[in-house]
């Protein structure tokens, strides 16, 4: 059983889910260092909120708004850019930095 952590950072985007078990994916820029228990400083993570209340997070290789611009251009109906970014804090998040349970973005 993996521990849960809090994910704290700045939300820069949201992706609509096409999965029946997940409500949505939040894209969060991490500003502080939380390793070894959480994400790294200046990383970007995808936080998945499930319909059953579970929340998990993993790294994605984005480096900034350009990546969101590109996704929005490719799939405008699925992506929302949040700019300026807003404070984000989610507790009891299952942290799986290299997990694949959320599928591709």
């Amino acid at each position: 059983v993996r521990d849960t952590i809090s994910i704290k950072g700045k939300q820069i985007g949201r992706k609509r889910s096409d999965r029946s078990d997940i409500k949505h994916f939040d894209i969060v820029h991490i500003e502080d260092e939380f390793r070894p228990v959480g994400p790294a400083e200046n990383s970007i993570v995808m936080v998945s909120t499930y319909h059953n209340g579970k929340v998990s997070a993993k790294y994605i290789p984005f480096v900034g708004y350009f990546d969101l611009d590109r996704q929005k251009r490719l799939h405008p109906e699925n992506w929302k850019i949040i700019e300026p970014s807003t404070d984000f804090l989610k507790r009891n998040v299952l942290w799986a930095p290299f997990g694949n349970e959320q599928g591709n973005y």
Partner: protein
Amino acid sequence: MKEKKSKNLDWHDKPQFIVRPRLPQFPGIFDIPADTCIASHTPHDHIHEHLHDHLYHMHIRYGFEFPKQNLAGIQELAPLVAMMVKVEHRVDCNPIFVARGKGSEGICLKIAGQDVHWTPDDTVGKKATTLFAKTGRKITNGYYFAGFSTSDVSERKTFRYSREELLRSIGNGLVADQHFQATWKEPVEKEIEPYEVIIYLGDDFTDYHTFFKLPVVVPIGAF
């Protein structure tokens, strides 16, 4: 009287923005030793300007020189770069470094009063692919050219420099190092096996361009 025909321009009469690849100049930035152009790293502590220190990544690094040149016929341009990497990888650019800074950090080149950054540009990847094909070579199966053009610090759109700004920066010649980092498009807990990378350098105004290859192991005598 015989009419005087106009003369075709020779290649050296056309506008050119000359850039020459060379070995890296500044060892230690991002903990890359002097004689290394390609290096695969596992996740490590954060280094300022390092984009993927928390992921498995492969450093791609080379030196280059803008020799003294008059930039005749150029009003403004954006330098371009593309590198041939595996399709399962993405590449992100660091600024251009002109010296080593504190610890493992680099000191960024400034042109027009701001750090020179890069933004991904798919048209540059296509341009490099076309120019590479004109040399009679094909992209290796499973690889693609990831392209970039210069940008402002937002890294969201291309930024072009005026001739005057370029001349002021280049002066009698400018030598710098360029770092990139490749990482998995879908992050996984797996090291990237180092591989050689072909680089394209050019610009969005002139026809001048160059290709060169970064070896995983730099040959004896190169330094």
